[in-house]
């Protein structure tokens, strides 16, 4: 361990969500206050990995990997200069010597110690609760154990009908188990909802096939007769099950405080003040292990606020923790539940309005104060559409409307009185995960942010639990509107339309050429922005040959010359090698052609071979030879499908579960030539080891035992984005159907040069919306999108084949109209046995230009130009 004497040493025990947030906060606040990181930070994590997103833990069951859930990585901590150890449980604190010891015996000295040890699941002391298939739900390892157990079980019981219990029950149900929920209290979710709400919730959950048993106290867990175990209840009844999941509440992990003399609460929890300081002036406690005002906050947002407060106290700032709102909105097994503030109407003088629709299974209640002018709480079951509005009323103490019941009564015709973004004060909290207020959003607009994506990236709003997405958008839009920013989407001065609008005009108006589009809807002669955009739209819809007369002058140079221009004006040539599979014979042809034309060769990241240094006039000659050998164009020059990368798959690999190469080739052949708003990259992996890196692609496909998992809208490059898991265990037919629809929807609706990742980030409703459109066909567009894709597939042609056989097209591949000479300024030199473009200095030397030569290149081999 490297210790720097000048830095304050901070040791953090626990690297859960809150412990990790503290690391980020401390560094950020230190940078703000001191202009640099003043701290030497050491993180000690008892788990075998660094922090991950526990809130979305259940997504592990729907295919998210541990990597995708992670909130940080070893590299990230290294970059930040943070020391860390995993599998490092702290078991001793020496407050006098100011050091902690981990189980292995290693010792760490601190100036300030942060306890962020979280909590652990409470397992009721029932005889038999320690058997192999009695499990809990807290860590990734727990989930792995549950998965393993579910595979050998038919029936599962969740003990505990709270928020987490129901989430766990959903997981068991999804795993195909007959699922029961056993609850000690008379109702479900007793913390968040009232008795009536609990009843509606129970009905809805039972409708989904999960059996709910309330008022049941388990006395023992014994060997079962038909199943593995038998639960015996106090009332004498029994329930047979193969596995049991305890979710009967959490307990603060305060063991260290208890053992080493730090004050804890009567019922546990490390007592802290508003600065999150414990009874020891150099020890802080934050997150679920901390007890503030005799209260444990079992949610992530208050934990984050504590982390901010503790960090602030350390750097001399003034952020304090003053309690937190515990309102929640969630969807459990498709049932929406919301709870705000004083849900049980316990405050003095509280009065309520209730609405229940037994037919649809909707229950809503609002709680108002004694003065009947403010909202203090609410319960929503079955429909949380009013949640955002109600929450803002409660949090910002906004005066209630004349008839408060109008807030929850169904509206017929007239829109419900939603609270416009305008009505919110600047202090209104929009994103509680990242502590972003309406004022912060306004400030970032003042600071130059000009759209939703920019606000998200500079404030982090809506990047935590994502619950505030809709609210964030409406606040942003209304602020932009106020500034008179008409969110302008005009593509350029020649068309007062967005790409999406142009797309519609071309399609609806059956417009076939740019000239027609310009004369009907535009002005001037067009430019380098609208021409390629129009060319792409025309190609996506009609798929004519891009070098046909009306289209050829619209293309960017790469499209015009069907090759990629390099820095010295020469081109690179990339034939398609679908799925990266190539025969030795074809490989030899590539070598021969490269040799004949003296091209530089390099293997690309997309598993093909790039031939560099072709002069414009050589392109048709090179392609004649390549076509002769059976190659076709690779579209490396176009905004269209580039490659479908694959691993070798089940045919050869010991771990592969499907033929990923075959699938990759089929997909590549289907979508090759599709013109799109930007380039498209795919990959197919033959198993979850993911050697093809499908999750960094626009379309990623990963083989499973049962079919294919589809990922969408990933990106490598400058701004990497993990692809989102879109659907699981698909057969090939459904896979292709979904890809058809996703891609065509992208082609229709994206902005010019917008990659799928940015398209997704900007999509209102995000992934869920896209799923709705594609999987549930919510817009009724499915068949049309597929049909359109089929048209593109059916009209595919190899552009190079068409180009070399057309006299008209070939004429364009001339350097000079009036001479057979080559461009004398294109000069290559040799490096590592291949050509490369000469540098400027080298060119001057070679051409004998009398200019002061700064660095004389030694021994340049000029490559003959014929």
């Amino acid at each position, binding site marked *: 361990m490297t210790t720097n004497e000048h830095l304050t040493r901070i040791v953090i025990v626990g690297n859960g969500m809150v412990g990790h947030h503290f690391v980020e906060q401390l560094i950020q606040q230190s940078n703000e206050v001191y202009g640099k990181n003043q701290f030497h930070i050491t993180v000690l994590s008892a788990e075998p990995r660094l922090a991950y997103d526990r809130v979305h833990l259940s997504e592990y069951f729907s295919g998210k990997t541990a990597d995708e859930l992670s909130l940080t990585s070893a590299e990230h901590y290294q970059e930040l200069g943070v020391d860390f150890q995993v599998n490092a449980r702290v078991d001793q604190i020496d407050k006098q010597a100011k050091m902690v010891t981990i189980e292995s015996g290693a010792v760490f000295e601190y100036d300030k110690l942060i306890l962020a040890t979280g909590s652990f699941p409470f397992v009721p002391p029932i005889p038999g609760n320690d058997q192999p298939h009695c499990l809990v739900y807290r860590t990734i390892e727990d989930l792995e154990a549950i998965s393993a157990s579910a595979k050998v079980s038919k029936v599962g019981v969740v003990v505990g009908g709270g928020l987490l219990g129901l989430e766990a029950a959903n997981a068991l149900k999804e795993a195909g188990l007959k699922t029961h929920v056993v609850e000690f209290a008379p109702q479900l979710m007793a913390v968040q909802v009232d008795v009536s709400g609990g009843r509606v919730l129970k009905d809805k959950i039972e409708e989904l096939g999960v059996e709910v048993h309330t008022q049941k106290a388990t006395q023992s867990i014994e060997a079962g007769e038909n199943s593995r175990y038998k639960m015996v209840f106090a009332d004498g009844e029994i329930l047979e099950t193969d596995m049991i999941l305890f979710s009967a509440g959490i307990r603060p992990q305060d063991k260290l405080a208890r053992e080493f003399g730090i004050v804890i609460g009567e019922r546990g929890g490390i007592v802290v003040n508003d600065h999150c300081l414990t009874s020891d002036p150099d020890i802080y406690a934050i997150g679920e292990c901390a007890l503030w005002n005799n209260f444990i906050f079992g949610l992530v947002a208050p934990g984050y606020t504590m982390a901010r407060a503790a960090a602030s106290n350390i750097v001399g700032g003034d952020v304090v923790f003053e309690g937190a709102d515990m309102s929640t909105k969630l969807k459990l097994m498709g049932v929406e539940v919301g709870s705000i503030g004083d849900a049980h109407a316990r405050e003095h003088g509280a009065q309520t309005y209730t609405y229940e629709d037994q037919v649809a299974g909707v229950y809503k209640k609002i709680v108002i104060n004694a003065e009947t002018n403010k909202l203090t709480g609410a319960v929503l079951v079955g429909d949380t559409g009013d949640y955002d509005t109600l929450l803002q009323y409660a949090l910002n103490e906004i005066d209630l409307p004349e008839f408060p019941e109008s807030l929850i009564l169904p509206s017929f015709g007239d829109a419900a009185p939603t609270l416009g973004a305008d009505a919110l004060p600047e202090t209104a909290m929009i994103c509680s995960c990242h502590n972003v207020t309406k004022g912060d959003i306004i400030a970032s607009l003042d600071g130059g942010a000009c759209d939703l994506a920019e606000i998200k990236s500079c404030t982090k709003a809506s990047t935590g639990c994502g619950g505030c997405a809709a609210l964030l958008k409406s606040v942003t839009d209304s602020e932009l509107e106020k500034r008179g920013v008409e969110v302008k989407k005009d593509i350029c001065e*020649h068309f007062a339309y967005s790409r999406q609008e142009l797309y519609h005009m071309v399609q609806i108006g059956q417009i076939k050429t740019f000239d027609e589009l310009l004369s009907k809807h535009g002005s001037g*002669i067009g430019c380098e922005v609208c*021409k390629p955009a129009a060319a792409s739209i025309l190609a996506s819809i009609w798929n004519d040959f891009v070098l046909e007369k009306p289209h*050829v002058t619209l293309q*960017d140079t790469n499209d015009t010359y069907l090759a990629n221009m390099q820095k010295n004006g020469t081109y690179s040539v990339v034939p398609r090698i679908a799925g990266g599979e190539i025969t030795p014979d074809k490989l030899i042809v590539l070598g021969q052609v490269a040799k004949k034309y003296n091209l530089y060769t390099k293997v690309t990241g997309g598993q093909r071979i790039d031939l560099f240094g072709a002069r414009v006039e050589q392109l048709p000659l090179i392609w004649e030879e390549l076509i002769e050998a059976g190659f076709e164009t690779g579209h490396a020059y176009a905004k269209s499908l580039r490659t479908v990368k694959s691993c070798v798959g089940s045919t050869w690999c010991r771990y592969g579960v499907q033929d990923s190469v075959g699938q990759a080739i089929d997909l590549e052949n289907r979508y090759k030539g599709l013109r799109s708003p930007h380039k498209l990259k795919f990959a197919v992996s033959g198993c979850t080891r993911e050697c093809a890196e499908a999750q960094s692609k626009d379309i990623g496909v990963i083989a499973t035992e049962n079919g294919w998992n589809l990922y969408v809208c990933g990106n490598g490059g400058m701004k990497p984005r993990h692809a989102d898991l879109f659907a699981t265990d698909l057969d090939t037919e459904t896979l292709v159907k979904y890809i058809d629809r996703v891609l065509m929807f992208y082609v229709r609706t994206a902005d010019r040069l917008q990659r799928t990742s940015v398209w997704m980030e900007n999509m209102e409703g995000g992934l869920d919306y896209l799923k709705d459109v594609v999987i549930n066909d919510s817009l009724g567009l499915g068949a049309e999108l597929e049909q359109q894709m089929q048209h593109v597939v059916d009209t595919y042609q190899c552009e190079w084949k068409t180009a070399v056989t057309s006299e008209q097209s070939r004429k364009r591949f001339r350097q*000079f*109209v*009036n001479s057979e*000479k080559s461009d004398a300024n294109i000069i290559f030199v040799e490096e590592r046995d291949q050509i490369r473009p000469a540098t400027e200095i080298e060119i001057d030397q070679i051409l004998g230009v009398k200019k002061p030569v700064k660095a004389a290149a030694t021994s340049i081999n000029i490559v003959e130009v014929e």
Partner: protein
Amino acid sequence: MSENWINVCTSSDLVDNSGICALVNDEQIALFKICQGEEQFIYAVSNWDPIGKANVLYRGLVGSIMDEHFVASPLYKQRFKLSSGECVDDDSVKITVYPARITDQQVQLQIVS
């Protein structure tokens, strides 16, 4: 003295709304023909892209900004006005422009040596 017009190619060698390149006294010259409504414009400029440092301008896209015709470099996309040679995106560079015309189906340039 006088006019000094040189024939470089025929008008049928030109491509509507696009460029071609001619070699004149070892100079590379990009020739553009722009059709706007009934009108036709012929431009001749140096083919050398002073920013990308390569002979590529004839392969750029042509367009208009505020009714001025330009070619955008295919390398780094800077726009050069075809009538004056000025670079819209960078004041510090300029390309040479040459008078051009069509006479008797011949594209002619005037090159002052």
